[in-house]
């Protein structure tokens, strides 16, 4: 299996010769797609951390029915086909969506913009961070938080000085997974944001269009995505290994 993958990767990465790899990267659309992909993936991860951390913390603490419903809702994008997610976002925030009149009133147009790319990526990738953070938060001993509370720590101080240092690895691996998923998002993005170079054309979309226009650019971008995916897996596996070593 290992040999097979190594051989495929070797052939795949050698297909565009290395001297032409750099020139392919300098192609205007390829450079724009790489820049846009990195920008949107990092923005998506930042938004997910800001909004997802309180969600994960609360869901790890509360077990009532309403929180179980929210938990199911958070999980939904992981099983939802990305194309359906794209249609759903379009029906909500599109020009004929349920908020169309309200958005038009304020002169806001979301579909087929970079914001739409970020929204689609957040919709699809956020559950990965939330689930990872939730598992980390749930693993913290209740007695530690109670001891801190008895010593006068408020909830923010408990989170900052007890919960965060004990769960940062789970959060970081969630961040990396979210970033990687956002980087590879295709289905929801092409439906909700379209495929406009420099504005909404991320790397996966450039690969899709590259097969019709410029195969070598598509192959170069594929090599970059494979490399990013490999690095992501190495980081996550190292973090998990490190966490297991600490726990046992």
């Amino acid at each position, binding site marked *: 299996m290992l040999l097979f993958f190594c051989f495929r990767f070797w052939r795949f990465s050698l297909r565009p010769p290395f001297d032409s790899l750099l020139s392919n990267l300098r192609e205007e659309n390829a450079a724009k797609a790489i820049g846009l992909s990195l920008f949107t993936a990092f923005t998506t991860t930042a938004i997910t951390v800001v909004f997802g951390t309180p969600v994960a913390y609360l869901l790890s603490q509360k077990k009532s029915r309403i929180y179980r419903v929210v938990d199911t809702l958070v999980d939904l994008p992981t099983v939802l086909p990305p194309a359906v997610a794209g249609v*759903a976002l379009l*029906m909500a*925030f599109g020009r004929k969506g*349920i908020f169309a009149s309200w958005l038009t009133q304020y002169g806001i147009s979301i579909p087929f913009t970079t914001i739409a790319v970020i929204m689609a990526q957040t*919709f699809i990738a*956020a559950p990965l961070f939330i689930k990872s953070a939730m598992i980390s938060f749930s693993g913290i001993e209740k007695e530690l938080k109670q001891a801190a*509370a008895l*010593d*006068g720590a*408020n909830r923010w101080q408990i989170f900052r000085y007890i919960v965060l240092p004990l769960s940062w690895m789970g959060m970081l691996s969630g961040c990396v997974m979210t970033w990687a998923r956002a980087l590879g998002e295709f289905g929801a993005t092409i439906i909700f944001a379209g495929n406009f170079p420099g504005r909404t054309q991320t790397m996966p979309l450039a690969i899709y269009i590259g097969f019709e226009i410029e195969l070598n650019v598509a192959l170069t971008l594929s090599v970059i995505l494979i490399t990013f995916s490999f690095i992501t897996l190495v980081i996550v596996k190292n973090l998990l290994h490190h966490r297991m070593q600490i726990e046992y």
Partner: protein
Amino acid sequence: MDIPYSPQIAGQKADAPQGKKAGQKARFQQHGNAVLFSVFAHAAFLLLPILAIFIKTPL
């Protein structure tokens, strides 16, 4: 022994009204708003597009 979190025991809000409900209200006002806002904002962001599909689907 399982000791529940209490702002009275923790030495905060010493002047807070006594009783379980009053304590809960004080805690909610102190820390809960931002967290609950995040939860409902995220839930709304996920739920509204799904609902939009059902609303827009012709029956």
